[in-house]
């Protein structure tokens, strides 16, 4: 009996807190009556748990309903909601496509860096691990490999930037020392962006990279397509909405919308 009374008081306290979440106008008008109703329901209930369930379900359902019914939400233009949705859909689509494209740019480098690190760790000479072909990191789309010693100094490379072997920031090596591998977009010079995978070998680091020119041009194409779709959808929605507004004002059709 004491438990039931205390449980009832607890439920009513929680209910009072729940009432604060109703829209202000509704709360001001109804909260004292609702609170009294809940107290009477609990006082006369033969099953406090069942009554608590009824009050909880009702509170959640009516909170949602009353917030959806507020004039503030109803006054929010339908067109603005639709345009927000198209912006969100186009933005999400564009972002996902760009991320997939960027991730696909790492494909051969992951294998090249891991294989290179294994071969160096197995004792092969760095010069034998990198190919003989000299690749211009600035102009070529071919993947290249650079091997660094433990202190981050280059030892062998198939990739060159204006005749020199570039070195990534020291923090990249520190991260790979702790985590064995990393994937980064490396910009050794303004305008030259490299999709790079860095792997740890037993006595240094192996970087495999590839110029991102082609991937970036595809990413830009995706952006242009998403922007064109967004614009087209918004123009069509605005036209459809304006047409609806116009038709609703026609006398014959207006009658159909009037409440009986």
């Amino acid at each position, binding site marked *: 009996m004491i438990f039931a009374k205390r449980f009832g008081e607890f439920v009513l306290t929680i209910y009072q807190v729940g009432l604060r979440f*109703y829209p202000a106008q*509704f709360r001001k*008008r*109804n909260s*004292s*009556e*609702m*609170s*009294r*109703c*809940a107290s*009477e*329901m609990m006082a006369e209930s033969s099953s406090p748990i069942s009554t608590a369930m*009824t*009050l909880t*379900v*009702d*509170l959640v*359902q*009516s*909170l949602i*309903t*009353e917030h959806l*019914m507020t004039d503030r939400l109803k006054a929010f233009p339908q067109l603005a909601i639709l345009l927000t949705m198209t912006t969100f859909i186009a933005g999400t689509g564009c972002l996902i496509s760009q991320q997939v494209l960027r991730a696909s740019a790492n494909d051969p480098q992951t294998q090249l860096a891991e294989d290179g690190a294994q071969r160096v760790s197995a004792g092969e000479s760095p010069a034998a691990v990198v190919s003989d072909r000299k690749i211009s990191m600035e102009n070529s789309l071919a993947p290249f490999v650079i091997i660094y010693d433990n202190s981050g100094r280059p030892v062998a490379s198939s990739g060159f930037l204006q005749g020199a072997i570039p070195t990534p920031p020291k923090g990249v090596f520190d991260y790979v020392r702790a985590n064995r591998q990393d994937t980064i977009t490396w910009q050794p010079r303004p305008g030259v962006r490299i999709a790079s995978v860095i792997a740890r070998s037993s006595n240094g680091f192996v970087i495999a990279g590839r110029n991102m020119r082609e991937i970036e041009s595809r990413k830009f194409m995706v952006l242009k397509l998403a922007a064109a779709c967004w614009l087209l959808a918004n123009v069509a929605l605005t036209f459809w909405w304006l047409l609806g507004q116009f038709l609703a004002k026609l006398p014959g059709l207006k009658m159909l919308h009037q409440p*009986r």
Partner: protein
Amino acid sequence: MSSIKSDLASVRLPPLTPAVFHILLALADGRKHGYAILKQVGVDGGQSLRMGPGTLYGSLQRMEAAGLVQEFEDADDERRRFYDLTRAGQRALADELSRLRDVLSAAKRKGMVTPNAVRAHGASR
């Protein structure tokens, strides 16, 4: 003119939600305050409809705006708000009951309702 009036009178109001219908039904035998309406809904609707204060007062507010119910203050208990049906509320209730009667008649004609059971798709309860 009288023909238009009789035509309008024959037009039924749209179907009511279960909450609105049960509140109108609860108020059919006189004015009541919120908790009395809740209790009456519990008696009329049984276990199939368990209404709480949020649904009740939200529905009452919208029904008052639609002209189906009217609010009163009781001289004996100023803290309580009492509600009563308006003429429009009485008509809405009558229309809904008429609709339910038609549905029940149709179900009876199809042999789905017998004095002791309701049958659907061969199952009975």
